[in-house]
């Protein structure tokens, strides 16, 4: 769908990437300064790049042309770019900002086969992003979360065929993130628009994206499913880990509406999680769980008669002791889980690599 073969240079920095990105939500993951935003801007046509970009059969960039390099102007590319810094127009109120996009949307011809879906209406985005009360407000006195919601709505109103989201959760505190995440999930998933999601947070990537690109120092290091990508980053690019969370991916096998629980198959073992508030999971859906090492307890034998519902069998692959804690890495099937326990507990259990253990996860702590 989106074929890239681009080279971008600025001062000492060079970005060189060739890949083909498919439908769904694809993360562009990498540390700060790895070229993620540059890649996004090159796709949008906002920075000059060398090479080729083709979207649904239409050339957006071709600098190999004999006579004159071709670059499709940004305003002709059917993209919706959500900038990292909120960039609402200060001279217009909220409705004015939304209408700016509405007025110009019909001028852009859709690429490829004509989009079969209905255009996204102003009424629909006002409803989805809960903006009815804000329409007449000046954008200069909106809160950070409100600004993001207006920007997301504005992006959708351009009727984009490709969404480019540049770290949409950066600069927000935890409370704001929780407020915005459901809207972001709606933006990326409900409209079935192919999406590139730039982030340097594995937690976000694992929750919102099906596929991921890993970029480091301007080069593409990995492109595949998020599940494989997270494992790749853990195994090969440990310096890029921005979190001590573990990520377990599972498939939904059962839903229990009485207890509001969803059962997953994680590497052949069962894990129960509370039903998501903003995501209606169906049997067969893939889910990635973010697990804090401190939420994982360990047992030498399979325990019984306890409230914890999730007990996963695994093998110790690594033990790292710090001053106060011991971090145990377990392998569960093809996945990795970390547990943080106290030094005293580690000594008492006499843990050694290769040992088989039971990891205890509280269902209510899983998301």
């Amino acid at each position, binding site marked *: 769908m989106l074929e890239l073969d681009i080279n971008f240079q600025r001062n000492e920095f060079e970005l060189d990437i060739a890949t083909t990105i498919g439908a769904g939500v694809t993360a562009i993951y990498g540390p700060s300064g790895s070229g993620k935003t540059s890649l996004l801007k090159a796709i949008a046509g906002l920075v000059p790049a060398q090479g080729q970009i083709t979207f649904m059969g239409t050339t957006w960039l071709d600098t190999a042309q004999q006579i004159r390099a071709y670059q499709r102007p940004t*305003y002709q590319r059917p993209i*919706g*770019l959500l900038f990292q810094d909120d960039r609402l127009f200060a*001279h217009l109120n909220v409705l004015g900002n939304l209408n700016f996009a509405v007025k*110009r949307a019909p001028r852009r011809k859709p690429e490829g086969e004509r989009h079969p879906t209905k255009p996204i209406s102003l009424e629909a985005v006002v409803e989805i992003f809960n903006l009815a009360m804000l329409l007449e407000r000046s954008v200069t006195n909106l809160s950070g979360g409100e600004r993001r919601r207006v920007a997301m709505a504005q992006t959708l109103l351009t009727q984009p065929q490709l969404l480019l989201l540049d770290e949409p959760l950066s600069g927000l505190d935890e409370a704001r993130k929780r407020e915005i995440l459901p809207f972001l999930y709606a933006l990326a998933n409900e409209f079935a628009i192919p999406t590139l999601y730039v982030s340097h947070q594995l937690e976000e990537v694992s929750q919102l994206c099906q596929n991921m690109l890993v970029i480091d120092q301007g080069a593409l290091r990995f492109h595949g499913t998020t599940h494989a990508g997270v494992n790749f980053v853990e195994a090969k690019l440990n310096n890029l880990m921005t979190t001590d969370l573990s990520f377990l991916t599972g498939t939904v096998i059962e839903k229990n509406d009485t207890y509001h629980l969803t059962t997953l198959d994680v590497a052949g073992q069962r894990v129960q999680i509370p039903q998501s508030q903003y995501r209606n999971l169906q049997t067969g859906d893939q889910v990635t769980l973010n697990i804090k090492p401190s939420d994982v307890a360990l047992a030498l034998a399979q325990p019984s008669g306890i409230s914890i519902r999730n007990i996963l069998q695994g093998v110790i692959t690594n033990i790292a002791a710090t001053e106060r804690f011991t971090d145990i890495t377990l392998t569960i099937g093809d996945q990795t889980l970390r547990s943080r326990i106290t030094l005293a507990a580690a000594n008492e259990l006499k843990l050694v690599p290769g040992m088989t253990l039971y990891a205890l996860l509280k269902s209510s702590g899983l998301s």
Partner: protein
Amino acid sequence: MELTAIWLTLKLASITTLILLVLGTPLAWWLAHSTNKLRPAVEALTAMPLVMPPTVIGFYLLLLFSPDNPIGQFWFQITGDTLTFSFSGLVVASLIYSLPFMVQPLMNTFAQVGKGPIEVAYTLGAKPWDAFCNVILPLSLRGYITASVLTFAHTIGEFGVVLMVGGNIPGETRLVSIAIYEEVETLNYAQAHLLSGILVAFSFIVLLLVYSTNRRAAMRVL
């Protein structure tokens, strides 16, 4: 009263301001956003009229405008009039002399507005002209007001350049500042007082206007 001189001065200042709004906008935009190596040189050239003695500018312009010079000759051929000692000559001279007063406030405004809004406008499907008129212009409005007022006022206050290039022809090149000079020369202090008083009051009102709307932009220039 020197009504003709006052009218001519206002006409010159208005025409200069309007033309500079058109010419100064792209130049200021380029200076604010270009990464070209020539940018500092162009910026320095644009600011030259701020530091050069007006008589020096007037002297060079007089030479350029002379019908013996290709530029003066070209003008004479297409208009049938000379640039020296004519109103057209005064306009061209004022454009050069007042250029920094238009370009610098605009440049500061454009730099302050930054590239962000125009990038958003492009991604929302706006073409460059649309993006400029509906995003950059309204966001830069205060800068435009400052730049226009300063250019207008500065053109009214010209003396050295216009004396060198235009001389003192009533109804054609006799501006208020030149009229004052002549009244003083002929010891006609009452008239000189009146005209000077008008200019003093005008200057104060203009600066008051600028400082009360946009303090920072004005500070940069003055």
